[in-house]
């Protein structure tokens, strides 16, 4: 049946067991193979357990937003929402555009021109996320009568980050400009964000 083994329980006659000799390496192989298979199986089971925390299909499906911009006058801004985050849509006045273009780009913390942050021919439409790049508060400045900060754009009340009229970071702890999400003009009055 098998070979003599020192794990043989005492009291049993070892001479009984001398029958055939297996190749010990083949035996170990099957133990290792079984344990490896169990390991691979366990990892395979972990995948859905991890993946379930990713955004579900209904969340992903709502990742585009259509916005009607026909009622936003120059100098005004509206707050909308994109992927459950605030979205600022701002119709810049010529003065604000001029002010943004006046700033030397090299002097900025996150160098970008207004043209890079808007669509060609639509430079007055500044569409950004309303999420401060410091720690995620909603900056002021989009609502009527809110503090626009020292640079006339947005001002984050949490830690004092100030953005200019192109929503670029100018002062305070935030590292980057307010993020411009991907968007397209469906027509002159409707924008699809996402």
């Amino acid at each position, binding site marked *: 049946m098998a070979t003599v083994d020192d794990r043989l*329980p*005492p*009291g*049993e*006659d070892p*001479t*009984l067991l001398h029958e055939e000799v297996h190749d010990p390496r083949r035996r170990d192989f099957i133990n290792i193979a*079984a344990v490896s298979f*169990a390991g691979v*199986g366990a990892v395979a089971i972990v*995948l*859905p*357990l991890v*993946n*379930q*925390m*990713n955004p*579900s*299909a*209904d*969340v992903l499906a709502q990742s585009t937003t259509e916005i009607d911009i026909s009622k936003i006058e120059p100098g005004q801004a509206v707050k909308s929402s994109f992927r459950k985050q605030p979205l600022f849509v701002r119709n810049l006045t010529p003065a604000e555009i001029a002010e943004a273009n006046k700033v030397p780009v090299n002097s900025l913390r996150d160098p970008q021109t207004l043209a890079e942050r808007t669509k060609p021919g639509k430079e007055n439409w500044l569409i950004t996320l309303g999420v401060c790049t410091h720690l995620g508060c909603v900056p002021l400045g989009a609502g009527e009568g809110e503090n626009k900060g020292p640079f006339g754009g947005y001002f984050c009340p949490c830690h004092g980050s100030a953005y200019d009229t192109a929503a670029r970071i100018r002062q305070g702890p935030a590292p980057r400009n307010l993020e411009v999400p991907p968007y397209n003009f469906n027509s002159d009055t409707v924008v699809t964000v996402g």
Partner: protein
Amino acid sequence: MSFPWAKQYEPKQPLMRWLDEKLPVPRLVYNAVGAGYPVPRNLNYFWNFGVLAGAALGIQIITGIVLAMHYAANAGVAFGSVEGIMRDVNAGWFLRYAHANGASMFLLVVYIHIARGLYYGSYKAPREMVWLLGVTIFLLMMATAFMGYVLPWGQMSFWGAQVITGFFSAIPLVGETIRIWLLGGYAPDNAALNRFFSLHYLLPFVTAGVIILHIWALHIPGSNNPTGVDVKGEQDTVPFHPYYTAKDAVGLGVFMLIFALLIFFSPNLLGHPDNYIEANPLSTPAHIVPEWYFLPFYAILKSFTADFILPAKLWGVLAMFGSILLLFFLPWLDSSPVRSANYRPKYRAFLIVLLFDVLLLGYVGGAEANARNVVLGQIGSAYYFLHFLVILPLVAASERPRPLPNSITEAVLEKHAGTSPAKTALAN
């Protein structure tokens, strides 16, 4: 713990040595389910089911925690949130089907585990505490399974909650008050759903705690074995690891195979179509039945149709709870010193009848309540109580057991000798 020849934990790596000095968790594991636990060498596959039950609880806890990340315990949205899990959550259908069928697998495995205990006398001295803790685990499981079934807030969830909390209204005088207290209202609604969710999340961890006690209590006398004969010496045992870890791996593989077939190819086989209809307090399904694992108890409940001193409903509820609670007294009802039914011909015969009786009750519990089925249920219920409360004590007093082997090793060698005459000669 257990036997003096049990291997001692000797950490080889410095890190494990360091850990063992400060916090001997590796030693605990080694002594509990490692090479430090000597186990009778003659256990058959029925001894796999304890480990399988532990695995099933683990699966339920993991899938349950994950499902709770997506489920909403609110009567208005619970059903929809389950459908959201099935349709929109990544791998959500897999997790939910695994959890729903995992409950069935858990109960199935535990029923076989209990049946093994009954057959081989594992409830007898010195393992009474193991048995008592086991029955406690079973009760906790039943409560957890019931409350879990309410959570999807389908028609069977709702009416199951209605019927089961209705049991308590059978209690004289205070019954209705207790029912309303349990539900937090006059019918199952948001309050009941929320407390069931809270308790459904809590009880598995309580169960896990009692399981630790169950294993602890088991390790003091050590495992029973198919002969029921005590371990006499080192030659009767093998270390749990690698011998029974290897054997349990085979059992676990077969368990997973059946589980996978259920999840992937027949996930609604054991469920009820009515639970895919959202709960409607104004319309009862034509045929309310519990999940399969409660059917025998449901049959007992339904069998009491006559008033006698107490109303029939109260008799039914008393009998149904009694049918489980009587298991607590089993170690003292059966006074036979012989454990294994292999050596108790009369007890064995009655136990086989009991097995078919429980299967019959399971059938009756799910079947239409026509005269034939009610009669079958009444006869089946009567046998259930007679078996445990009357037959068992009498058989223990009257039967003559067959001669027991002197030791486990002797039984093993005899078995092998029986199959191969050449070796008998050698062994002698």
